[in-house]
């Protein structure tokens, strides 16, 4: 019988030294959304990029990944490598009060172009609802 997998959260102050500077949260619908187009290995790769962002003082100016601002939230862009021909975007907001990065959703794009307007509005809405407290919080 295999060893049981334990899931580990990304929390500010935890992780291998110097540790995470940000806690990472995810909107539950975002997880199902990205798993529709990612393999487990590809998800792990993107999870590593997110964890790397959580190690940075300012994740919006990452030295290791491509991060761009969209309205009042951000997108992490990646492609190639283990992602193969997929051009993937991960959207997140920065809750500075809770020192948290909040994953809002993801998209497999057909090309290198900018985020489609429909997705831009959808992620803006999710971020707004998070800030309004409609999704609750990690503390509750």
């Amino acid at each position, binding site marked *: 019988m295999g060893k049981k997998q334990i899931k580990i959260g990304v929390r500010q102050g935890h992780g291998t030294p110097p540790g995470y500077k940000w806690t990472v949260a995810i909107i539950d619908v975002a997880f199902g959304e990205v798993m529709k187009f990612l393999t487990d290995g590809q998800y792990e790769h993107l999870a590593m990029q997110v964890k790397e962002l959580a190690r940075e003082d300012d994740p919006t100016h990452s030295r290791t990944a491509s991060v761009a601002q969209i309205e009042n939230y951000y997108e992490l862009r990646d492609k190639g490598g283990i992602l193969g021909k997929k051009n993937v975007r991960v959207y997140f907001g920065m809750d500075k009060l809770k020192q948290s990065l909040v994953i809002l959703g993801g998209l497999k794009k057909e090309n290198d172009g900018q985020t489609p307007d*429909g997705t831009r509005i959808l992620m803006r809405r999710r971020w707004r609802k998070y800030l309004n407290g409609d999704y609750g919080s990690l503390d509750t």
Partner: protein
Amino acid sequence: MKVAKDRDQDRVDTAEAALTMAIAVLVERIRGLPKEDKDDLFELSKILFAAESEEELQCAARAYQEILDQKPACVVAFETKDTPVNMGGWLEWISGRIKQAREDARLTQSELEAATGLPQSHISRLENGVHSPSSTTLEKIAAATGKSMPFFDPSHQDEL
């Protein structure tokens, strides 16, 4: 003949009634939305009609549906597994490529840090197969070591 015509008319009437009902339900649902969601729907409607690609259309339709559905969602902890996920040999392969590129360019990890702006600790974790590099990271290493992207990226191998 007359019976068939009546049947066709019945079908048209039923379809019209169903459409009228669907529109009434939609209007009622939109009326009950928060103002900000209504504003988003208005913006999305313009995008739906102006969409020039299938991707734009699908993204707008997905957003439209999520707003109309008003399904509850919640924020949860972002979790990863404590033992490495099988990445199909990717980590072993790419860590070897990065180390080989650095050594071919006769650079130390510190010199590669200076040339790329990537922290030395990050480079070390890449070479030890602990972290999977982003495309941005690989582009920086490729530029600093004089290698082409296909050297690091199987998805570019056809460019070799």
